[in-house]
């Protein structure tokens, strides 16, 4: 598992939360149409300071040019005044707030791609919102499909 976490608006002096994501697939690799079952755990932060958690599954391009992205799953869970989750659809996870999990069926495309100029990446994104107005984003990359890594040509084609 690879994590890409950004502090966003959290100041350098603040204690950063730690978000870990577990995939049902040990290698974080999925075929198109597979079920993505994932759970995430939020640590090193007082849960009472978290007002909302956004969970999403997105793909994005990465490279030298303009970026593109798509969202295949998104929801936002809100804490109520007692510091627990208020979204009734997900009440089973209330006791574990702000940690949780979800599952979705993955689409058939775009497939993960490690190109030279552009890459396509998939990730589970967990975004925490704090009562101070700040936020923290943690991204956890997984792979969809099995496209080989692109290699540069060793010599010019004649």
């Amino acid at each position: 598992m690879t994590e890409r976490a950004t502090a966003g608006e959290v100041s350098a002096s603040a204690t950063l939360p730690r978000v870990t994501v577990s995939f049902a697939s040990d290698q974080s690799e999925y075929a198109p149409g597979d079920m993505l079952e994932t759970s995430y755990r939020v640590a090193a932060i007082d849960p009472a300071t978290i007002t909302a958690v956004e969970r999403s599954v997105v793909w994005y391009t990465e490279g030298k040019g303009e970026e593109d992205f798509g969202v295949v799953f998104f929801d936002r869970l809100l804490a109520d005044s007692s510091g627990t989750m208020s979204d009734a659809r997900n009440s089973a996870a209330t006791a574990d707030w702000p940690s949780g999990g979800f599952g979705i069926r993955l689409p058939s495309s775009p497939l993960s791609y490690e190109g030279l100029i552009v890459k396509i990446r998939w990730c589970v994104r967990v975004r925490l919102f704090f009562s101070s107005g700040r936020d923290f984003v943690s991204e956890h990359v997984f792979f969809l499909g099995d496209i080989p890594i692109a290699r540069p040509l060793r010599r010019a084609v004649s």
Partner: protein
Amino acid sequence: MTGRRLWINPFATRYTRPGVIAWQPTPDSPEALLERLDQLGGRGLICGPHGSGKSTLLRHLMAAAAGRGWKTRVVTLRSRADFGPALGAIVAAAGHGHLLGIDSWEKLGAAGRLLAPLAARRAGRIVVTTHQPQACWPILLNLQPDAPTFRRLVGRLLSQVDSRGTMAAEFAADQLDAIFRRHRGNLREAFFELYDHFERTTRSLIGEA
């Protein structure tokens, strides 16, 4: 499928685009520039050549302004066809609690010279990025990046990659200085060269594995 390793290129646009890299500590901090902007009457130019960090600074100014509770808006101009959106933004956001940023003013061409006096007379704050000074506009900051700044930025980008547990890359100071000179201070183009270098390096490692 077999386990795969993720190679994060720290020079990809995702990590170098305006507003992503933290502002380098200098006397010209965004907060200090907002103070100077008010001293200039609420309007100012950020000048500098291609890739010198104008758009990046504009984003940091906006973030600092938002932190003060100001309403902010950035309009990025792509061509002369954006005259209408630029005019609309200038007319709309005219309150004293607003900061309007217009990026790439030079894209308006001659139309920009017509619009500049109107923009200069409006109430509220406005910051414009452009390559050249404009008549009737005071200069808030003239950006001229230097090689040490470039080296610091590269070091910061590489340290972010290190912290993610992916491949580390090293560049000698004279190598970075040569790249900086080759692109005549255009940080964007220099990052692109480093992007290509990083890709070549990682692919060769994959080939050896």
